[in-house]
């Protein structure tokens, strides 16, 4: 089970802006352990889905080139304060995480 996602979602006029920070190692699979010199296995988020009140507003597919502890921000129309934002990710090792937040 992945760690919870930190979400900030704010509505201004008709535009809702969502910013999210996900604790995740995002290992590329190309780095070596400093002590053992062994390759550290790839471990990165591959898919991310954002929903507003149950409707998908953004889907992302990622490779290992997204930074450690990924940050993403996106915006959509039609949200009002109090609505639910849900973000879900899955990674290449089968871990996942889902967090809900309230649009403010």
């Amino acid at each position, binding site marked *: 089970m992945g760690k919870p996602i930190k979400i900030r979602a704010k509505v201004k006029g008709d535009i809702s802006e969502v910013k999210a*920070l996900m604790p995740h190692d995002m290992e590329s699979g190309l780095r070596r352990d400093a002590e053992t010199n062994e390759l550290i296995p790839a471990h990165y988020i591959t898919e991310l889905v954002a929903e507003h009140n149950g409707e998908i507003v953004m889907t992302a597919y990622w490779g290992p080139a997204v930074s450690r502890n990924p940050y993403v921000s996106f915006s959509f129309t039609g949200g009002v304060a109090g609505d639910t934002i849900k973000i879900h990710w899955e990674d290449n090792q089968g871990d996942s995480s889902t967090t809900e937040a309230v649009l403010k």
Partner: protein
Amino acid sequence: MNNKILLLSVIIGLFAGGGATAGPEEDRTAMLEYYTGRFPDVPLQEFANGLYAFDEIAREQWIEMEDFPPYEIAIEDGQALFEARFANGKSYADCFDNGGIGIRQQYPYFAADLGEVVTLELAINQCRAANDEQPLPYLTGDLAAISAYMSYTSRGNTINVEVPQDNPSALAAYESGKQYYYTRRGQLNFACMSCHVQSAGLMLRADRLSTTLGHATHWPVYRAKWGETGTLQNRIIECNSQVFAKPLEPQSIEYRNLEYFLTYMSNGLELNGPASRR
């Protein structure tokens, strides 16, 4: 009063070793004048932002990072750890003034009973020991997270490190930190000051060197190079390695004294930790 002054002059005489030795306040003033003279356009509190005070390109990226900085993960983890109860039912709040909230500006301080400098990180483990808990590793992880949370609650407070003038051991600890700071070491034969005083603001390979003024205001730091949040001493260890000097043990007397001196140099600046750095 007169006795104190007499004692003080004896102490100063002891450390002067023949040459003139300035006290902490003169050291701080000299440093302040040096940097404000060299960077006349940088407002004082901006020195707390390290190289971002004078590197525009880096600053822009840093501001973007600060919009949703990865150290927020450490603050959140740190708060949960800070508020958790020890096996004996007590918690960190029981160990610190004001329940541990908004107190970072008091650290490091010279503990007269111990006869040593106590940093906030050392105090966190002292608290654990007093409650029969195992110590935490000093550089990153849970302890850095707790420290990050405690810094966060102290943001905006003015650093106020004291070197009690009536305690020769405190002054000796400060002097030892100052000596470490100015001493060349490692295969590259660099002192802290070689980079951060003489060459502050200049490039060393791809890095722009920060000023000593403000070095102690913003810890712990999420450093992109580390990919995690670490304490000031984690950075000092890295500095040692960069000049090919074998680092000392975390929270060794030398490092604590150095942190004492370094933090004193930032007296008067506001705490702004935790922070993100390249």
